């Protein structure tokens, strides 16, 4: 089967009108089996695909279609993949990084937004989208004065729909919680999974650190803040179950390091850990090559690797196979399994980004906190 772009290329006379017709009625990037065709139309000297797939050259050059202003790139992409990208358009002395003008699908993050490519058979999970049948929970903003961190911290607290003081709830604490709300649709996901009885109604506290590279990198004061200040105060203020097995801690990237570190320092606090794309950098030999921010991380992970211990009951680990951290995460799994903790590990063909973390929430949270799906029929 020839690709649409090949048919256009091989037509006897490639005119601007033929290009118009090629573009019309198609969605881009164009997915045809394992082949994905990216196109850019406009004046340029060269065009590149900038992506964040570890293992591929980060910059992939487009070809121009002679006699037209159309540029294209065909890539072979494994099924069920999702990755984020931008176009780099070079024109004269100017280099511009732009979103794909023909692709309305974008993913936001703290640095802006990227275009998104879904390869064949990849689907955005329907439970990540608002469902009019789901009763919405509420998010309250609280302030916590932390002696250990020496500042006042804003904490957003999700209370499930039909929250009642008479009931006792499990507690999940989420690092980078505001980002999870903004970029990973955390509230929609919680509303949907609780409505579908896949999660129990639960209270979710979302923290956000203004100095995450320091505080999340095995900072003992941050662990003290979580375990000696935040959780006890939340348990005073809200009707929480208040047992280790009913508490969970979640983090992605550096937030996963903070999660591991807090649980390691306070093994009696959290029964359930969710570690997404953990920045578990370590060295067997030689020096850390990931930069100075990783120094305390490497020291901590090296120490944990030397003498791993049981720091929770259940640990959910996930990582994208297009992330540079896939090696660290894969090698981390047998290590924590050796401690006797119940470990579940999930990989996806995705990168180090918020939608990857969003799309693994159902797998992880429903395993750590099973809902009453078998017992409740309303």
């Amino acid at each position, binding site marked *: 089967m020839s690709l649409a772009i090949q048919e256009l290329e091989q037509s006897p006379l490639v005119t601007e009108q033929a290009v118009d017709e090629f573009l019309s009625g198609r969605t881009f990037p164009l997915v045809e089996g394992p082949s994905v065709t990216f196109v850019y139309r406009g004046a340029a000297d060269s065009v590149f695909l900038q992506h964040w797939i570890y293992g591929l050259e980060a910059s992939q050059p487009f070809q121009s279609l002679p006699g037209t202003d159309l540029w294209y790139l065909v890539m072979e992409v494994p099924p069920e993949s999702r990755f984020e990208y931008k176009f780099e358009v070079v024109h004269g002395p100017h280099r511009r990084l732009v979103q794909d003008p023909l692709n309305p699908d974008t993913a936001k993050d703290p640095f802006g937004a990227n275009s998104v490519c879904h390869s064949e058979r990849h689907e955005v999970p329907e439970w990540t989208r608002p469902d009019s049948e789901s009763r919405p929970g509420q998010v309250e903003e609280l302030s916590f004065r932390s002696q250990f961190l020496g500042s006042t911290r804003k904490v957003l607290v999700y209370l499930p729909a*039909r929250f009642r003081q008479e009931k006792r709830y499990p507690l999940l604490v989420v690092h980078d919680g505001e980002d999870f709300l903004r970029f990973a649709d955390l509230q929609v996901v919680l509303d949907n999974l609780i409505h579908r009885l896949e999660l129990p109604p639960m209270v979710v506290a979302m923290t956000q650190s203004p100095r995450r590279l320091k505080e999340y990198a095995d900072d003992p004061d941050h662990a003290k803040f979580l375990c000696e200040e935040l959780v006890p105060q939340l348990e005073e203020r809200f009707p929480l179950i208040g047992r280790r097995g009913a508490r969970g801690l979640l983090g992605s990237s550096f937030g996963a390091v903070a999660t591991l570190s807090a649980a390691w320092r306070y093994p009696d606090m959290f029964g359930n850990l969710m570690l997404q794309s953990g920045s578990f950098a370590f060295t067997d030999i030689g020096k850390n090559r990931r930069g100075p921010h990783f120094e305390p991380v490497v020291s901590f992970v090296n120490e944990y690797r030397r003498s791993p211990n049981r720091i929770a009951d259940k640990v959910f680990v996930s990582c994208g196979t297009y992330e540079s951290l896939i090696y660290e995460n894969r090698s981390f799994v047998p290590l924590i399994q050796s401690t006797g903790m119940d470990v579940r590990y999930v990989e996806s063909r995705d990168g180090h980004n918020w939608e990857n973390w969003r799309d693994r929430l159902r797998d992880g949270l429903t395993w750590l906190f099973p809902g009453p*799906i078998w017992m409740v029929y*309303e």
Partner: protein
Amino acid sequence: MTSDPPSPKAPVALLGPQRFSPTVRDTLQELRVDGPVACITAGWEERELEDEELSEHLGYEARNLRLFWRTEEVFQRDPQLKESLLARHDKLRGLQKRHRLRLSHALEAARSLMREEGNDDLLEPERVSAIEQIQELDRHHVGRVQEIHQQFSESLSAGQHGSVQQEREDLARSMDGVGALLIAGGHVVVLLNRLRLFDVLGLASDLPIVAWSAGAMALSERIVLFHDRPPQGAGDPEILETGLGLCPGIVPLPHAQKRLQLDDPIRVSLFARRFAPAQCITLDNESKLCWNGQDWVASPQTKKLNHDGQVQEFAP
């Protein structure tokens, strides 16, 4: 050989979920009930008393029997009873876990045989035998659960019944003069345990009963838990235990369209054959299954799972 199941004495109506398409009032009108009714919303647990929407829908007095909070009060007065019930609950949970383990292998084998294509003369007896093994497991499980209930009943002293008896007398007064008993859905175990604890059906005598979702399940002979697409696990339907037996021969399946893969003939067929001779009936929005004294009569939204894997309108 199987005998026909016994029939309910008073009118019973089993309904689908009421949140989006409430049909309780129309059902009561059909049953010629017009006046105060007793309602049980214990399956809603801590939200038990938030029944304003139900009262508004009915347009007349609905006396909430408060079984959830009544039980909490009994537990406070009688901690020994609470302890015994929790011990029983733990035992039942442990048993359910082991049953699930055995069941998963048996169901997987049956599904594989049903998926396999080829010589039916060879395959069908194997399928029949596989289903019989599952039925035997189900029977065994129900028997074990009954043993635990029996042990629990015997272990309770007469004094411990006192706190329950007191509430039962109060319940009888609350139900005096009502035209029907309504049983809402929710948590099926919470609901069933409280219906049993106070023997509410014993107080309802010949009252018409309208029950929906978990309420309908609690009235069945055997309570079947089900979900074909849970976020974890294989989604194997399992028998919880015997219900109150008021709708013999019927396995009520609330929210079937959402919970079951009704377009998968193998799953549908296995479900229907496993629980035969009982009929597996879907209870979705606007579903209604009524016992009219002679037969079960259903609304068009009420479907039945067939042995051939199809789902069709229910006809007795």
